[in-house]
């Protein structure tokens, strides 16, 4: 019963990846419409050495830096805001259902729409942000999506808006399975609210937080739609997925683009491997239960 799924997954996921590796070892341009083996046999990894150490290697390293900056900063804020939201939702028992529905709106809004939404908010002339800045007498002529690092900041804000609620829901689910007696006991022992949070809530929430962190980190590392719609990767928002796309799709360099895509893949897999080792236990209990 498992085999149809596995066969399908192998066909639609593994085969393309293998094909990507094969393409990345070749030089292929759609403009010249011909496939040639990498010219010099001495450098079968030409696309990789070019990407990593060649004349244009700064493109890859810049994209790596931007991708990681984006991931670390946005996941950090998502965790903090998500945790705060979850605590508030857990405490607010009146209207928790409505709050949950409200909180799902940013999550459900398409990423493309998220990008357009924040574009309208940060629009230099009629956007909400510059209008407000102007109203309180601050400089209100920033072209947010046309400057570095402002464009990356907008991208991070948009991502945090869209996904902090997801974080909040996962953490809330974790909060709800913590038995109330534990707090009762903590209170009896004279622990302050902060101590109870730090010594009881956080450790008990750890499994839920870790799962949320993994999902979010892996998503953020492969971010594509947000920068593409916001800036097309200009002004310091070019992520790894974006430069791979631009190389193979817009510049029609399938070999080079595939090499960049494979490098992105390797980076994401390495991070997910680290994470899965970290929470492998959870997964194992789920599989073995």
């Amino acid at each position, binding site marked *: 019963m498992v085999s149809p799924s596995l066969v399908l997954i192998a066909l639609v996921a593994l085969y*393309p990846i293998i094909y990507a590796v094969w393409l990345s070892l070749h030089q292929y341009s759609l403009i010249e419409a011909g496939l040639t083996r990498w010219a010099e046999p001495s450098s079968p990894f030409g696309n990789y050495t070019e990407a990593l150490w060649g004349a244009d290697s700064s493109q890859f390293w810049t994209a790596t830096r931007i991708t990681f900056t984006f991931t670390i900063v946005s996941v950090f804020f998502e965790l903090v805001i998500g945790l705060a939201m979850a605590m508030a939702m857990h405490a607010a028992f009146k209207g928790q259902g409505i709050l949950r529905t409200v909180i799902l709106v940013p999550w459900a809004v398409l990423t493309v729409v998220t990008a357009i939404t924040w574009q309208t908010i940060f629009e230099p002339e009629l956007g909400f942000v510059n209008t407000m800045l102007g109203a309180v007498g601050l400089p209100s002529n920033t072209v947010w999506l046309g400057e570095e690092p402002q464009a990356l900041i907008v991208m991070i804000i948009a991502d945090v808006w869209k996904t902090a609620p997801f974080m909040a829901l996962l953490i809330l689910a974790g909060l709800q399975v913590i038995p109330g007696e534990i707090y009762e006991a903590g209170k009896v022992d004279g622990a302050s609210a902060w101590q109870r949070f730090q010594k009881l809530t956080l450790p008990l929430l750890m499994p839920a937080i870790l799962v949320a962190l993994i999902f979010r980190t892996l998503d953020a590392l492969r971010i594509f739609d947000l920068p593409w719609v916001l800036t097309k990767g200009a002004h310091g928002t070019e992520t790894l997925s974006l430069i791979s796309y631009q190389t193979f799709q817009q510049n029609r360099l399938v070999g080079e683009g595939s090499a960049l895509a494979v490098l992105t893949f390797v980076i994401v897999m390495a991070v997910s491997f680290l994470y899965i080792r970290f929470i492998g236990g959870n997964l194992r209990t789920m599989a073995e239960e």
Partner: protein
Amino acid sequence: MEAASVPATVERAGTKAKQRRSTGQGTPWWLWVAVFAIVVFCLFPFYWLLNTSLKTGPDLSTSALLPPSPTLDNYQSIFNDSNFTTALKNSAIVALVTTALSLIVGSFCAYALARLRMRRKFLILAIVLSISTFPQIAIAAPIFKLWRDVGLYDTIPGLVIPYLTFALPLTIYILTSFFKEIPRDLEEAALVDGATNFEAFRKVVVPLAAPGLATAGILTFIAAWNEFLLAITLTSSTSARTVPAAIAFFTGSTQFEQPLGTISAASVVISIPLILLVLFFQKRIVAGLTAGAVKG
């Protein structure tokens, strides 16, 4: 928070997740502030989009909180635009077919993973999960090349097939945790009565798993509706382009028109199905998103 998170009555028979707490009493003022802040944080940006979508012409260069002269012109113009309506139709077909396929195929796999005695169960689940973490870009380039060679480029099946790479793992992951919650006795009774594994699955488990199937279906549908990278890579014309891709290539009906209003209107329209899903299936969605996340 202390007053609120401690149940007033200590006797809570079993139902951990739904602790009934004393109502109202002792809700501190800052909690209301926090709740208000959450609502504004979540809804205001979307309101701003709605606000922009109701403006045309000179109104678009004002930043008033309410549109000075609200108009549905932008909505009219996108629905008169065949590019948009075709894209809407494509999106619906692609998302529905992807969801149906992954539910059918995925439910077998999830059932086997949840129930049958199999070696390497952990390994299979780990592989399935790690596929869902694949960066889309790594399959976009090869599939782009492949589809152009075999003629699936710019077709609807050409989108549905690669969409299974994220839809199937998602379905399998959610369904596995749902199937596990169904009491085993029922199936065992069916097996004792002479049913085969497959019959027990189809006649006993599937009906009981309907909520789980709905959850997996909704989440898969949303993921497919949302997908962007493959949609712009694997289509080149309006014949298979889905809405997210169409919006990204949107320009005003004339070259000189400021397309912000129409883009906003289109964005609102394509968000409506998802917001309706959230309104009606909030519980299911939350259950799906948190499936397996809190079992540690």
